């Protein structure tokens, strides 16, 4: 093959040790991605194919690397919130939550009760919204295109709620260190109650289309199996971990943000295949609504920001009358707050697994190091194992079931 006859995708440099020329045993090397309709962004897989059967899959990532961790080192603690939005862009509020909790741990403070409950409500709605995108893409990747449109129709309603609270539909940056950006508007409760009333019937509708559909069963059962031991060793999280029979959910087992006050079940699977993950995620969505309902019923009155003026800016109205408030405001927005030297790691149960944040402070206003453990990044490792010896069509189903977001994989 001369250079001119090669497919454009082949001109992207391949990692050393990986070639796109046919191997000695005449395997077809297929460069799947980075622009492929079902690699969910810019994931690139180098597939070694024997006919349509995958002999080996090598993920090649980094096409969306934006250096978020390096960027964070140049921002103040509060400003970093905005870059966390851009990692898992399907669940920005979960990222906000993980980061805010990590810095709060570093500071040794806790958000006020009202803020914590609102955080739980929104984080659970975010989980539903992230799972809806997963459901849609899982369906679409298997050819059931209508499910995608239904799921996104519902997600719109959730985005409306985020917009109501923060003004932004996706990049909300709503959870601040020490509370919330601002209190929820009065329409909030009604809007969430409407979702609680509407959504269970919608979930039934999706299930009618997929859960017992023979083609869907045929395509997903027994596919992409991870055993319990493999799942733990691979460090996968979320529905993949629980689908393999590992009973672990950070919300229940290492509660944060007051999750210990809510009654909810953690759906657990056993078979560890794509279908099991599908069932678990649909059940998780129902559980999330259960949490939201409890949280909404007990939503306490009170402030949504901690009163420590060294961390949270004073209310806008005070600036006109109080010199001290003005100084605090000015200092916080020019310099930022300075946590004591130390380091903190906080893991939360994001929709995709454990989202971990490590923040290191040396006493200045900017983090020396902010490290994010993206669940998608870790979960992606399981792909090679899942697809070995399966068909190309299965690769697509497996990618969808891992539920990766490339913004988080590449960071």
């Amino acid at each position, binding site marked *: 093959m001369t250079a001119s006859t090669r497919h454009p995708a082949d001109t992207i440099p391949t990692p050393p040790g990986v070639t796109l020329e046919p191997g000695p045993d005449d395997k077809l090397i297929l460069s799947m991605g980075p622009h492929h309709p079902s690699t969910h962004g810019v994931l690139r897989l180098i597939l070694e194919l024997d006919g349509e059967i995958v002999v080996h899959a090598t993920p090649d990532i980094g096409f969306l690397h934006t250096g978020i961790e390096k960027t964070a080192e140049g921002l103040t603690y509060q400003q970093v919130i905005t870059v966390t939005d851009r990692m898992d862009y399907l669940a920005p509020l979960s990222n906000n939550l993980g980061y805010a909790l990590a810095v709060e741990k570093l500071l040794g403070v806790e958000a006020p009760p009202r803020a914590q409950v609102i955080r739980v409500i929104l984080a659970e709605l975010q989980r539903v919204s992230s799972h809806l995108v997963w459901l849609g893409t899982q369906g679409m990747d298997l050819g059931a295109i209508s499910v995608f449109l239904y799921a996104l129709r519902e997600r719109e309603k959730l985005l409306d709620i985020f917009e109501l609270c923060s003004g932004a539909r996706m990049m909300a940056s709503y959870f601040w260190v020490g509370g919330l950006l601002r209190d929820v508007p009065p329409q909030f409760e009604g809007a969430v109650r409407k979702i609680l009333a509407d959504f269970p019937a919608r979930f039934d509708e999706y299930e009618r289309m997929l859960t017992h559909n023979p083609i869907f069963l045929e395509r997903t059962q027994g596919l992409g199996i991870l055993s319990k031991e493999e799942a733990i060793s691979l460090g996968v999280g979320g529905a993949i971990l629980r689908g393999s029979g590992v009973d672990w959910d950070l919300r229940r087992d290492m509660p944060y943000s007051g999750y210990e006050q809510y009654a909810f079940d953690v759906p657990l699977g056993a078979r560890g295949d794509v279908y099991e993950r599908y069932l678990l995620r649909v059940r998780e969505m129902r559980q999330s609504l259960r949490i939201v309902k409890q949280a909404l019923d007990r939503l306490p009155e009170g402030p949504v920001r901690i009163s420590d003026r060294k961390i949270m800016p004073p209310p806008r109205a005070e600036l006109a009358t109080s010199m001290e408030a003005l100084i605090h405001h000015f200092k916080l927005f020019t310099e930022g707050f300075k946590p004591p030297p130390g380091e903190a*790691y906080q893991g939360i149960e994001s929709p995709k697994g454990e989202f971990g944040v490590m923040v290191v402070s040396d006493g200045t206003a900017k983090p020396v190091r902010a*490290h994010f453990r993206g669940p998608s990044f870790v979960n992606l490792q399981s792909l090679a194992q899942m697809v070995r010896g399966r068909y190309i069509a299965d690769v697509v189903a497996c990618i969808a079931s891992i539920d990766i977001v490339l913004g988080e994989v590449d960071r």
Partner: protein
Amino acid sequence: MSVVTALRETFGEAIGLDLEFRGQLIVWIEQPAQIAAVCSFLRDDPRFQYRYLSDLSAIDRLTMEQESLPTGHDPAEMTGARRFVVNYQLLSMTHKQRLWLKVGLGAEAPSLPSVTPVWTTADFLEREVYDLMGIAFEGHPDLRRILLPDDWAGHPLRKDYPPAYEEVQFSHNFERIEKQRKYARR
């Protein structure tokens, strides 16, 4: 028996300072060469069962404010013998406990044994640290850049790798920026 006591009993000198900060148990491992053995012990010991590796990351302490260091960071060793710190976040699902292992590494060609034989998940995580921080993991099956292109020069998360912009100097950050200035790209 606490995990620290057990570690000291088994590994003796290799275990350094242990401390608790904001409810997190942090243990320093003094001998980097022992890290894989320590991890494998913690994973398999029926008393602890740290079978899940949550996170693996690294810190570069080159520009850290020396007078105000987190506990356990020794100012004398900041730039030389222990410039880099590799963090291991271990999780025991049985005991619902986390354990934070820290290993200090020197500035010159930092390297330590890979924990991929202990946890498969360390594969990508170690590659990320290698890519962005330039720490080599001996025995890693496929140690090459993961996020950046293969022909990238340097390791961006190191403190002497400057960002593409220069921060404006104010009185509150004057000294920090002055310290970083020598690493700025010319």
